[in-house]
């Protein structure tokens, strides 16, 4: 049977389906379709791929649609991928890659110049991609809807870079400079409060906050490496400059009058920092005979950060500080926060891999880490009523240091035919100290309001085993289990100060985390073309907490079960299908130290259960065209008492997505694709304000040349 001239397309289409099932309409190419004939005689290495998409219909929340499908609601289009390569300056290779999708804001241009004979290269480029967010919220079960900000939000990530290096004989060298940025707006779950809660007059915090993100990171890296048959070594340096200029905007008590200072107001918080980071590392690897490999590495990193910030309340999101603006409860602010932090880290690791016998390999490792940090800041706190505003200076300092040693050992045993076992143990122990001080007031009348020294120790143990079994060529199974224990102890010496009510972490005396995890997986190839992979994961995590002056309690008990399966069926030479499912049961129960009374607003239980199904059918219509039909289903229903008491969003939702894709090869190097996606999302727990019903049409033209 002749392999399909277009068979590669189905690999592509399947990949496309994986993307489109959730991010519907991601028609951007992972690869270009290629036939076996072209593959076998591949000489052309250049291509261009154009794609675009538009709404046929969009009813409901555009912000919700954009978040889910990661496409601009107004449509998108452009070059989703191109490559041009040629030989220049003799036999050097120049390759240009690019992408430019307007609307979705996906851009790339990259140039690679490579001299394979002499081993050097230069790589430079620019890329940017966008993630859409929905700032939708403000729904109260009473039916009121509050939308304080534009809810169609997006955040762009980008990088501009240049790299040069060589890989010649035994030596490698790389120098790379890059400028990364993250800029835009996203929603935040630092919810604002509203009395329109549907629960009487009780304020409820369900109004989404807005984050303005402006972060940059400039990096220069230099790496040098040497490789011989028995020895490897390398060293690297990294210098970074990180700048953060972020702002959060929270609308408090929307719609309420403001006579007493507890009405509508914007809480504007500006957070800034400038960090300089320097890191150096080195490593050696020695191959001692054929059975023993030894390696070691060390790194040292320092980071100095200068802080800045303001937080105040105003009538608008872009307002300025006014000391007489009514603030209301929990409305402390600060002006002119400034300070600095220093952070140092040492890490030393050593590893050994020993082939103990024909069927045994043992790998052991040690890791030592030391971290220390000093932080200092001061600001003017703003509080008090509008008629008598207070401005009080505060300054605070924190010092922290800890050491930790981690030891790991792992064995791999293959002594039984068609079995492999991998037992492992990890153990870590560490200790450190934390000193915190806070002063309030003007000198010389300033008073110490916090004076706390904490000594802490931690130990961690994880052990388990993984096994894999291939009893036949048509079935294999895997089983794994581990237990993870972490014990944290705190010894806090706190000077009791006037008005001090003792705060975290001073309250926690001891905390023990325990996780038991098991998974079981099987793959059956029942007949030619039909395979099933099924997996069951179970995890249980408990946290035992002992607080000062109280008995210990199980403060958290979480159970997670995940059942997942995929069936793949190549039914005939022309039809294949894949069906998958994920059933997730996830419940967390939080305990209380005592239960002398039942308080109505207690929060004790939360579920994150959900179900997803996905299916895809691919059919070869003829020698040049394919049809794909895919379907995705998602549902979650975790409505219980907490729904009324706390935060409703997303507790009850359902999504159906149906896609149909037609692909046609016009000639050996050109193909086109059309994709229609119908999507329906409903979320009663957001009062229907996140719902949408959409139909989207996408097209793609791909060419090789």
């Amino acid at each position: 049977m002749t392999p399909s001239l277009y068979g590669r397309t189905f690999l592509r289409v399947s990949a496309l389906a994986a993307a489109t099932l959730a991010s519907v309409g991601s028609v951007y190419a992972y690869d270009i379709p290629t036939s076996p004939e072209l593959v076998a005689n591949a000489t052309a290495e250049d291509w261009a791929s154009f794609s675009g998409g538009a709404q046929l219909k969009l009813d409901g929340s555009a912000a919700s649609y954009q978040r889910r499908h990661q496409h601009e609601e107004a449509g998108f289009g452009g070059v989703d991928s191109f490559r041009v390569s040629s030989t220049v300056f003799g036999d050097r290779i120049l390759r240009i890659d690019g992408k430019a999708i307007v609307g979705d804001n996906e851009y790339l241009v990259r140039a690679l110049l490579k001299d394979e004979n002499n081993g050097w290269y230069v790589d430079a480029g620019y890329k940017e991609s966008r993630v859409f967010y929905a700032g939708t919220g403000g729904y109260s079960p009473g039916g009121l809807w509050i939308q304080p900000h534009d809810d169609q939000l997006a955040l762009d990530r980008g990088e501009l870079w240049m790299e040069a290096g060589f890989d010649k004989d035994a030596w490698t060298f790389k120098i790379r400079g890059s400028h990364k940025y993250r800029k835009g707006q996203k929603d935040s779950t630092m919810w604002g409060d509203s009395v329109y809660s549907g629960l009487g007059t009780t304020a409820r915090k369900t109004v989404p906050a807005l984050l303005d993100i402006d972060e940059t990171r400039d990096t220069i890296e230099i790496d040098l490496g040497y490789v011989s048959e028995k020895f490897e070594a390398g060293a690297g340096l990294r210098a970074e400059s990180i700048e953060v200029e972020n702002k959060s905007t929270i609308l408090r008590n929307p719609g309420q009058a403001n006579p007493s200072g507890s009405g509508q107001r914007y809480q504007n918080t500006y957070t800034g920092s400038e960090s300089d980071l320097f890191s150096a590392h080195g490593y050696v690897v020695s191959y001692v005979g054929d059975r023993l490999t030894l390696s070691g590495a060390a790194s040292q990193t320092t980071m100095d950060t200068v802080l800045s910030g303001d937080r105040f309340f105003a009538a608008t999101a872009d307002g300025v500080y006014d000391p007489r603006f009514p603030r209301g409860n929990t409305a402390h602010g600060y002006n002119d926060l400034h300070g600095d932090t220093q952070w140092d880290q040492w890490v030393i690791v050593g590893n050994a891999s020993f082939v103990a016998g024909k069927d045994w390999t043992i790998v052991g490792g040690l890791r030592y880490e030391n971290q220390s940090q000093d932080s200092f800041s001061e600001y003017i706190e703003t509080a008090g009523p509008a008629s008598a505003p207070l401005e009080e200076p505060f300054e605070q300092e924190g010092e922290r240091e800890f050491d930790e040693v981690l030891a790991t050992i792992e064995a791999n045993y293959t002594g039984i035919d068609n079995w492999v076992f991998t037992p492992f143990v990890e153990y870590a122990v560490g200790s450190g100290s934390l000193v915190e001080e806070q002063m309030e007031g003007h000198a010389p009348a300033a008073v110490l309001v916090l004076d706390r020294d904490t000594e802490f120790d931690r130990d961690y143990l994880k052990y388990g085993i993984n096994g894999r079994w291939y009893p036949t060529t048509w079935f294999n199974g895997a089983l794994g289990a581990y237990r993870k224990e972490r014990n944290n102890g705190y010894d806090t010496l706190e000077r009791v100060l006037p008005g001090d009510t003792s705060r975290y972490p001073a309250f926690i005396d001891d905390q023990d985390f325990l996780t038991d995890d098991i998974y079981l997986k099987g793959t059956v190839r029942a007949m030619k073309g039909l395979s099933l992979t099924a997996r069951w994961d179970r995890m249980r995590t408990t946290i035992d907490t002992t607080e000062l002056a109280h008995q210990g309690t199980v403060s958290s008990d979480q159970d997670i079960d995940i059942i997942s399966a995929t069936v793949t069926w190549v039914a005939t030479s022309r039809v294949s299908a894949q069906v998958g499912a994920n059933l997730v049961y996830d419940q967390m129960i939080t305990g209380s130290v005592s239960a002398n009374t039942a308080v109505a607003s207690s929060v004790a239980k939360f579920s994150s259960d959900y179900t997803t199904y996905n299916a895809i059918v691919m059919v070869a219509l003829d020698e040049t065209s394919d049809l794909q039909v895919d379907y995705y289903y998602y549902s979650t229903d975790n409505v219980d008492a907490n729904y009324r008491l706390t935060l409703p969003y997303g507790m009850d939702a359902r999504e159906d997505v149906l896609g149909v894709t037609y692909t046609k090869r016009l000639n050996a190097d050109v193909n086109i694709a059309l994709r229609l996606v119908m999507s329906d999302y409903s979320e009663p727990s957001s009062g229907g304000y996140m719902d949408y019903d959409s139909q989207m049409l996408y097209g793609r033209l791909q060419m090789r040349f």
Partner: protein
Amino acid sequence: MMNMRKRRWARFVIPGAVAAWAAAVISCTSVNRVMVVPPSIPGATYVGSDDCSACHEAVTKKFAGSTHSKLHVNGGNAQEIGCESCHGPASVHVQNGGGLFTIVNPGRNPDTCFQCHVDKRGEFSLANAHPVMSGDMSCSDCHSPHEGKASDGGAQLTTVSDGCVKCHAAQSGPFVFEHEAAREGCTVCHSPHGSVNQKMLKTRNATLCLQCHSQVQTSTGIYIGSRDHASFLGQGTCWSGGCHEAVHGSHASQSLRF
């Protein structure tokens, strides 16, 4: 509700039925084609991992200690276990000297990873997930499939959380007032592959914090720390506006209020 369901199904069933009918009709014609599913390469056969090391020695040399190397067993039943388990049959790739499109690259397409990690497909398909499905991220951005621990854990220079702060600089600190939970790692509060809760949180309300900050119920209220929180717990989350917004750490408030 019933009408909504009927409308929903009508919206999907009709186009689906049309598509199925079209496929059924067309399948009656004769087409000389072969379907492939990942990781597969049309026309290629398995050649074994030894051929891979001829060009990719830097990768294969370190592969022995990787998580994925533990798929290998002695005996004859585990056929085709090796590089081609994930990258697809490589005969064509070898024949033409490593040409483009002749090998599967899971770094650009998560479908291969999902063949074994079947639960991750569902998690990444959720609305609150890292953008792997849209192609803006790949599994290999966080995991190293060819060497050591799959997430740079164990005896490595870096830790799991170091991978997170590569992109999330503002959350990395250090802060004057630390949140101790950050030392346990980002995954104490976040599910990095995807969650039904916003911001990939493990839970969406106060239970997230109550895991560690246990409630002390008395006849007068619910105490967390030294303060009665009974009237606060029903208001939303602990990190709501005006309460404990600075969950990753604070330069101003010992209670992480802001």
